[in-house]
């Protein structure tokens, strides 16, 4: 075919209409965004493996099968509670999913009218992902939001490890996935009252929490704080005079590999939270994320090395995670130097918090979950209100301007962030306290017996030790012995 005939063929076809081109472009953008959101969600799902390795490595060998099983089952248990109830409470009133094709049927928000404004409390559509929720955009949105919720649900398992009944853990996780997390997530991300602080009261862009320093990590940290206090310390953790004893974890390398997996998954966590692969800001977000994590690890190393004489690997891991937790809220709104500063502060904060939780609060948190996720989740929220530089976020939460913090002339944003922290502590603290008490009635308390704790939870609770051939490992469960004999 000559060039002339080819040109003739094109000329003979009807010229494409402008609206057809526009529709094709929009469809392509939605598809790119959907693929990006799903792939990022898959990365976040893989963080469950990281959490499992960190928490199991930081606990003792005699509880390893129990600890890793909690991390394993929280994925499915909390997910189904979220599918039945949680997702609808969180996202039932979220409105149009603008980056995922604009589907707008998730539109029922329970609101109260107060001081001349409507304030959302929870959503009411999408139970069981049926009805109007049976839609590809909504399903993709569910997957992405579900893996975030599961991150929260797996945080307390570390703080309560080595003494929490498995049955109580299973039931409690239903509450985390079904109610505790989703209600706060609605307030921050589902059109709820915290996100309306900007449009209703003029406080910056309202509560801004890009990928969940507050919604995910502070929530997990507050649950961990409340329940760790209710459950009490492991046997032998504190002496009679209240001084703490060290209980070293059994597999530091595993905990460090797990931390690396979390660093990897965090790219999905933060950059995926655009819900849009077509948003070039993902370049800024991903880079800020890696910078803050590195800075947290380094400042924690310098701090513990100078204070205690050696760079304790468990604190290197905690410091890196603290930097990642802290940058999660501000990652889209800050410059690279700000990201590094946020991470450096986080790395020191987590070390100070570990000592504070142990020596002042007298709480026994084997993996540092309260310090990493609670303290640094709050720090991440505050850092949006301090460092956001007004280069991104226009239109967020229905406010036209970009997100700017105190250092860029907007104290209102910092106020909104503080309200978010207080609201989180109150709601999550109270609801996890209530859920804890309800579960305790059903499971006859949350705590294993002193005898079980002493011999390790693996065999009495799970029926099999993690490392049966290890010297001193308890014998397999009596029931198993009977079958073999």
């Amino acid at each position, binding site marked *: 075919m000559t060039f002339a005939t080819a040109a003739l063929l094109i000329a003979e076809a009807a010229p494409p209409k402008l609206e057809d081109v526009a529709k094709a472009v929009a469809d392509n953008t939605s598809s790119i965004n959907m693929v990006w959101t799903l792939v990022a969600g898959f990365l976040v799902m893989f963080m469950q493996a990281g959490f499992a390795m960190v928490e199991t490595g930081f606990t003792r060998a005699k509880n390893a099968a129990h600890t890793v099983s909690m991390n394993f089952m929280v994925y499915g248990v909390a997910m189904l509670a979220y599918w039945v109830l949680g997702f609808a409470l969180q996202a039932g009133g979220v409105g149009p999913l603008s980056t995922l094709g604009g589907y707008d049927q998730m539109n029922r928000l329970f609101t109260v009218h107060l001081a001349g404004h409507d304030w959302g409390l929870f959503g009411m559509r999408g139970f069981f992902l049926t009805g109007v929720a049976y839609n590809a955009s909504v399903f993709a949105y569910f997957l992405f939001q579900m893996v975030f919720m599961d991150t929260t649900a797996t945080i307390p398992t570390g703080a309560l490890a080595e003494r929490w009944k498995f049955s109580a853990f299973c039931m409690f996780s239903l509450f985390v996935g079904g109610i505790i997390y989703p209600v706060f997530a609605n307030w921050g991300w589902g059109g709820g009252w915290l996100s309306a602080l900007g449009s209703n009261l003029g406080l910056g862009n309202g509560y801004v929490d890009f990928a969940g320093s507050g919604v995910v990590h502070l929530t997990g940290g507050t649950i961990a704080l409340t329940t760790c206090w209710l459950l009490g310390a492991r046997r032998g953790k504190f002496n009679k005079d209240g001084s*703490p*004893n*060290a*209980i*070293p974890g059994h597999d530091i390398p595993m905990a460090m590999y797990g931390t690396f997996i979390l660093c990897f998954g965090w790219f999905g966590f933060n950059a995926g939270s655009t819900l849009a692969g077509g948003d070039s800001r993902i370049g800024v977000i991903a880079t800020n994320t890696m910078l803050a994590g590195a800075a947290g690890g380094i400042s924690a190393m310098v701090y*513990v090395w100078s*204070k*205690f*004489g*050696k760079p*304790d690997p*468990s*604190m290197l891991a905690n410091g890196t995670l603290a930097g990642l937790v802290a940058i999660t809220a501000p990652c889209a709104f800050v410059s690279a130097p700000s990201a590094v500063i946020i991470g450096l502060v986080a790395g020191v904060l987590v*070390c100070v918090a*570990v*000592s504070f939780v*142990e020596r002042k609060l007298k709480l026994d948190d084997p993996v*540092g979950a309260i310090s990493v996720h609670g303290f640094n989740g709050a720090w991440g929220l505050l850092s949006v209100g301090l460092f956001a530089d007004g280069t991104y976020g226009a239109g967020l939460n229905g406010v036209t301007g970009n997100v700017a913090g105190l250092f860029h002339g907007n104290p209102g944003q910092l106020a909104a962030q503080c309200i978010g922290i207080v609201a989180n502590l109150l709601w999550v603290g109270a609801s996890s306290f209530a859920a804890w008490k309800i579960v305790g009635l059903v499971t006859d308390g949350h705590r294993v017996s002193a005898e079980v704790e002493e011999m390790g939870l693996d065999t009495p609770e799970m029926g099999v030790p993690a490392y049966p051939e290890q010297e001193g490992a308890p014998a397999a469960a009596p029931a198993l012995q009977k079958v073999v004999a």
Partner: protein
Amino acid sequence: MKLVKAVIKPFKIDAVKEALSEVGTTGLTLTEVKGMGRQKGHTELYRGAEYTVDLLPKIKLEIVVADELVGRVVEAIMSAARTGSVGDGKIFILPVEEAIRVRTGERGETAV
């Protein structure tokens, strides 16, 4: 005959074996043990909380030798196992009543 028992730092075992073979000992028995001396171990910090490592890993050597070799054996172990810092270990010398080779039934120094 004497039984020489030496508790030494694990990383010194190769040097001690070499020194003993130069003296001309014919065999040895080695056990991995844990123990403490006057320092009663030492303390470490984990996540800012102190813990004590009181029983440290050591190697225990047992060698049966003819009386006239004891001095040189002790000298060999001491020079090979010494680092000069605490925890270098101890040597104990005990009399041996009899030695019997299981395979042949030989008795006395020829059985060692």
